C-alpha cells in the first residue's frame, strides 16, 4: 500500500472555481511524471524551503553533541512484530519520509516449515482417529407411545356429554372469520389512518428555518425534500424525530456532500404503523356523496378544496367497486390538521394511498401549503 502524502497547504492546489475541465484533466500526471513524483517523495524533504534546509543541516553537529545528553529512550516492542533491517529516514516536515519496510512479516522459510508441520499433523489425524461418521452421535428415534384418549369431561355421563355439545355449538356460532381480502382491507384502513396523521405529527418537530416538501406512500416509506435557512437545521430535525422514535430508519442525503452543513438534501425514512385494526362494519358511500362530505370537512376547517381526477379502480373486495380520487387542499398546517380530523370521521370505506405536501419553489411562508391526497373509495354494488 502506497503512502498517501496529503498536505493541503502545499501551493499546487487547484481552485475549483477557476479551473476548467480540460485543465483538471491535463493536470493528471503521466506515468513518467508519477514515477518522478514518487522518486521525489522518497528523496526530498517536502514543505521546507531551501533556507530552512540549510538551517537544519547546521545544527546537526550540535545534535550529535546533544545526543549524549538525551534521556534514555526506548522503542515500544511488539512481540509479534519482527524486526527487520534498520533503515533511517528523514522526519521533519510532518512525516514525509520514505515508507519503512513491512512489519509483522515472517520469512518464507518459516511459512514452509509451518506448512510441512501442518501436513504431517493432518496425515497423523487421518490415520489415527476413528472415522468422522463414527464420532457423530446418531439421534435416538422417538417411540410414540400409544395412550388412551382422555377428556376433562367424563364422556360416559349423558348430562355432561350434552353440556359439552352445547358449549361446542355456542363456540362455533360465535366464531367470525373474515375473508382474507376484508382482513387486508381493514389493515390498509388502519395504516391509511396512520399515514394521514404522520405529516402533522412530524410537523411538530420541524425546526424554524426548515423548508420542506413531504411525500408518503403505502410502502411505509416517507421522503422529505428539505432546504434550510442555515447550517445545522437538518441535524436538529434528525435528532428531534429520532429521539421521539418516529422512524425505524431515517437517512439523509445531502445534495452537496456537506452532511449537516448542507442547505439542501433529502431525508428518506421508514416507520411501522401503530394504529390498531378497527372492528365493526364497513360503510358504503358513492363518490358524489363522499365528495360532498369532503367539501363539508374542508369548509369546517376553512381551507380551499379542489377535487381532480376521479376514476374507477380495480377493487380487491368482491361485489364492491373502487373509485380513485385525487383531492387537493390549500391551507396552513393547523387548518389542514383540523381538516384531516374531520375527514377521518367520514362514514365511508376509503384508504389514503399517497400523501404529498409542500409549497411550490416560488412560494414561501405564509403562502398556503398544498396537500394532495390519493384516495381509494369502496362502494357496495
Amino acid at each position, binding site marked *: 500500500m502506497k503512502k*498517501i502524502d496529503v498536505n493541503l497547504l502545499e501551493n499546487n492546489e487547484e481552485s475549483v472555481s477557476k479551473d476548467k475541465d480540460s485543465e483538471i484533466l491535463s493536470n493528471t500526471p503521466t506515468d513518467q511524471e508519477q514515477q518522478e513524483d514518487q522518486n521525489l517523495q522518497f528523496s526530498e524533504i517536502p514543505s521546507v524551503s531551501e533556507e530552512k534546509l540549510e538551517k537544519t543541516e547546521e545544527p546537526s553537529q550540535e545534535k550529535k553533541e546533544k545526543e549524549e545528553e538525551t534521556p534514555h529512550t526506548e522503542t515500544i516492542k511488539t512481540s509479534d512484530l519482527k524486526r527487520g533491517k534498520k533503515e533511517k529516514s*528523514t522526519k521533519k516536515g510532518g512525516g*514525509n519520509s520514505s515508507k519503512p519496510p*513491512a512489519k509483522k512479516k515472517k520469512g518464507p522459510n518459516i511459512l514452509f516449515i509451518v506448512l510441512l508441520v501442518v501436513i504431517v499433523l493432518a496425515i497423523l489425524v487421518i490415520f489415527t482417529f476413528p472415522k468422522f461418521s463414527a464420532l457423530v452421535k446418531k439421534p435416538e428415534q422417538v417411540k410414540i407411545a400409544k395412550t388412551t384418549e382422555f377428556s376433562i369431561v367424563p364422556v360416559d355421563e349423558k348430562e355432561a356429554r350434552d353440556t359439552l355439545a352445547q358449549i361446542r355449538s355456542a363456540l362455533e356460532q360465535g366464531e367470525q372469520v373474515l375473508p382474507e381480502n376484508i382482513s387486508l382491507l381493514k389493515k390498509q384502513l388502519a395504516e391509511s389512518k396512520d399515514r394521514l396523521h404522520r405529516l402533522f405529527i412530524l410537523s411538530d418537530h420541524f425546526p424554524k428555518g426548515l423548508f420542506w416538501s413531504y411525500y408518503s406512500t403505502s410502502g411505509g416509506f416517507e421522503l422529505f425534500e428539505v432546504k434550510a435557512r442555515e447550517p445545522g437545521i437538518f441535524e436538529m430535525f434528525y435528532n428531534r424525530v429520532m429521539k421521539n422514535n418516529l422512524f425505524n430508519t431515517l437517512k439523509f442525503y445531502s445534495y452537496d456532500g456537506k452532511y449537516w452543513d448542507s442547505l439542501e438534501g433529502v431525508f428518506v425514512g421508514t416507520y411501522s404503523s401503530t394504529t390498531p385494526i378497527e372492528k365493526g362494519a364497513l360503510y358504503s358511500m358513492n363518490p358524489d356523496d363522499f365528495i360532498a362530505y369532503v367539501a363539508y370537512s374542508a369548509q369546517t376547517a376553512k381551507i380551499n378544496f379542489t377535487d381532480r381526477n376521479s376514476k374507477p379502480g380495480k377493487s380487491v373486495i368482491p361485489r364492491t367497486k373502487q373509485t380513485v380520487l385525487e383531492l387537493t387542499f390549500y391551507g396552513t398546517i393547523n387548518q389542514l390538521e383540523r381538516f384531516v380530523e374531520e375527514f377521518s370521521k367520514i362514514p365511508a370505506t376509503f384508504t389514503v394511498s399517497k400523501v404529498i405536501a409542500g409549497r411550490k419553489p416560488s412560494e414561501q411562508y405564509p403562502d398556503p401549503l398544498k396537500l394532495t391526497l390519493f384516495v381509494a373509495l369502496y362502494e357496495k354494488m
Partner: protein
Amino acid sequence: MLYLSLNPNLLIYVASRQIQEDEIVEDYGKLSVPFAVDRSFFYQKDALAMVTALFQSLPHYPSMSWEELALSLPPTLLTYTLSPEPIPQWIDRIRFGETYIEALSKKNYTLEKGYLTIWYDPKILDLFVQAAKNCGFVLQKITSGFINAINAINMIYDTKNYDKFSLLKWDSFYSELALFKKNILTGYLCFRINQSKLLPLNINGDIPENLSEILDTDNLTENLYKTLGPIFLYSHQVVDSDPLEPFKKFGFCEIINPWTGLRIDTKQRENFSELSSAERSLWTETAGFITRESL
C-alpha cells in the same frame, strides 16, 4: 514538532524532538475542543479567537523550541471522493452547487488505483494558519486525520497478505470506514450513529451494495467483520466503557497501537500502563504523522 489531530470533541497532540535522524516522542495528551468543528463555526466572528485560545492551551516547552505544527482535520471540514478518473468540474458544480463550489478548492492525489480528491475551504485553512501564527507556531502541514490513520496501519502492519481488510474509526460524531482490496484503497464511507441508528453521510468508491443493510442491522460488528474481513480499529471518543469492546470478540479485529515502532521518552512510557487499548488508539491519527523507525 507538535502534531495535532482535531476532531469534533478532542484535540489530540504528540510532541516530539528530533535527535539526529530519530524522532523521540517527548509528550502526548488531549484537550477538549470547546467549539463545534463544522464549517459554520469558522465563519463566526470569534472563530479565530477561539482557535487561537485552543492552540494557546497546548503545552509549551521553551527549552525545546517547538515552533512547527502539523494538523489533521476531521471529515466535517474536508470532503473526499475516490474515483477511477479525475472528476470533471461540471460534476463538482452539480454536487456542491454553484454557491458552495465558489468557496472551495480541491486537490487530486493519484492512488495505486484511481484518484483521491479532497475538497476543502481555503478560508478555514487560512484561519488555522493565522491562529497558529498568533501563538508563535508555524503551521507546516494540514492533512486529513483518516488518511493519517491509513498511513499509520501502512507503517505498522504488513497487510499485503490480506485479500481484503478495512480500517474503522469509531467516533461518537462521525465514524469513518475505509475498504481495501489486495492492499489497495477501494472504498470510503463516512457515517453517523444516533441512538443506535446509522446514517451514511458520504459513500464513494467500491462499496458493497448491501452495505446500508449491514450498517442498519443490530449485529453491526459481526456483519462488518463477515463482509469486510479483518478490521483495524481505532477510537476517537472518550467514554467510561470501552467503545471498541463489541469488536474484541472477533478473530481479527486489531485495535491499532499507534505507538508501535515509535521511540518514546522513558518517563512518558510509564504512563502507558494506565491506558486501555482503546484509549491508546486515540493517538492513531496524530501518530500517523510520524514515520517510524524500521522494524
